[in-house]
């Protein structure tokens, strides 16, 4: 690329260049996603790969998801109770816990944790494969690395994260029940009853799930793309891993705002 001249024109040129770079990399990522997913291999040998990836991405993320879900539910109940008790409506704590977990905290916190644990691991793993020339090795054998390495990881992420988000919410609600009902003495029936009368399956639960699916898509896509396109050095891999966590966290929070405005904005 030709060098930039100084002055106003130079700055404008820089701006243009970075815009073109951003759009080009977005385009690359989109092409990469399409190439990995279109005509993806069916069951058989590849199913084994998928199972293995779900194990690494999903099952191994369970401990952090369960523990944070439990504690976040407990914190929500404690804080909610302390505020609601001053309005003599501590019974509504179940509603507070369930709605905030289902609508926001479940998908968002799971997404952030997922990006931190599974996403960074995916980037590092794929980056490492690239650095040790395993990806080009596969190509030499006539195996498409997009289908063999990338696609199972992408699909595993898409499947695992909504499941993790659902588990997170359920554990959180039980944690909230533990604090509110067992420790703070909210009546059991009103905790669950208020929750049931305010939570609607088609609205709150399903919209939360949709958020989980969207965040899964974005977080896995960023992780895998960063790994695949990183510089094949140890510095490059570490940079890509950092980028994965930063980009996916920002994307999740930004998308969360847009989705919330679309889903719950009009009430």
């Amino acid at each position, binding site marked *: 690329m030709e060098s930039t001249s100084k002055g106003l024109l130079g700055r404008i040129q820089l701006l243009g260049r970075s815009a073109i770079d951003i759009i080009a990399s977005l385009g690359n990522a989109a092409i990469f996603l399409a190439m990995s997913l279109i005509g993806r291999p069916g069951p058989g040998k590849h199913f084994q790969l998928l199972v*293995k990836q779900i194990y690494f991405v999903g099952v191994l993320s369970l401990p952090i998801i369960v523990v944070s879900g439990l504690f976040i539910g407990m914190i929500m109940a404690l804080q909610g109770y302390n505020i609601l008790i001053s309005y003599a409506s501590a019974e509504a704590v179940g509603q507070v816990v369930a709605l905030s977990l289902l609508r926001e905290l479940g998908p968002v916190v799971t997404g952030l944790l997922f990006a931190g644990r599974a996403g960074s691991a995916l980037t590092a793993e794929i980056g490492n494969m690239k650095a040790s020339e395993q990806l080009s090795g596969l190509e030499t054998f006539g195996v498409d690395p997009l289908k063999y390495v990338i696609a199972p990881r992408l699909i595993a992420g898409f499947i695992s994260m909504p*499941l993790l988000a659902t588990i997170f919410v359920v554990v959180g609600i039980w944690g909230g029940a533990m604090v509110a009902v067992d420790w703070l003495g909210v009546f059991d029936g009103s905790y669950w009853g208020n929750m049931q009368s305010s939570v609607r399956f088609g609205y709150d639960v399903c919209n939360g799930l949709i958020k989980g699916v969207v965040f899964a898509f974005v977080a896995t896509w960023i992780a895998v793309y960063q790994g695949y396109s990183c510089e094949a050095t140890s510095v490059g891999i570490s940079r890509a891993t950092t980028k994965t966590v930063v980009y996916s966290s920002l994307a999740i929070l930004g998308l969360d705002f847009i989705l919330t405005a679309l889903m719950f904005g009009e009430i």
Partner: protein
Amino acid sequence: MNNRALEITVGLFVLAGILALALLAFRVSGLTLGDTGQGSYKVTAYFDNVDGLKVRSRVAFAGVTIGKVTAIEMAPKQYQAKVTLELNGDVNYLPEDSTAIIYTAGLLGEKYVGFSLGGEEEVLKEGSVIKDTQSTLVLEDLINKFVMGSDDSGKEVAKQLQTMNDTLKELVKTNPNITN
């Protein structure tokens, strides 16, 4: 880890996710399969003031939930708020001349629509219009009336309070020991 154990763990994970979703559906959102009763029917009611009433607010009779508010809109000809109520199908015995009243649950609670029983034999059905309504209680109006004394009853109450106060003072004056 061998393949079998791996697959079993993944299977358990997926199962846990599905189980969690089922729990959310039934325990948390109280989803019931199919409609209980015979569906529902809609009636409309016109109110002078529906301040605080929301779509999805509950409709209750004798404190039992029998339906919900499905729409609140302006009825331009009547200069009133048109409220559409969806009542459960099995509530098919409310007389047509029942009064729809907007209540407040507790002092600060949510607004909901309640019914006061009428006496007619004809019952409310799909498309019925409730003629007798009682609007939401606007606390500010009441306080205004009382403070400004624009209402005679307010003046009356104020006068009585004054008399009571005077009597008490008199009482204390004649019996100094009464305060002990």
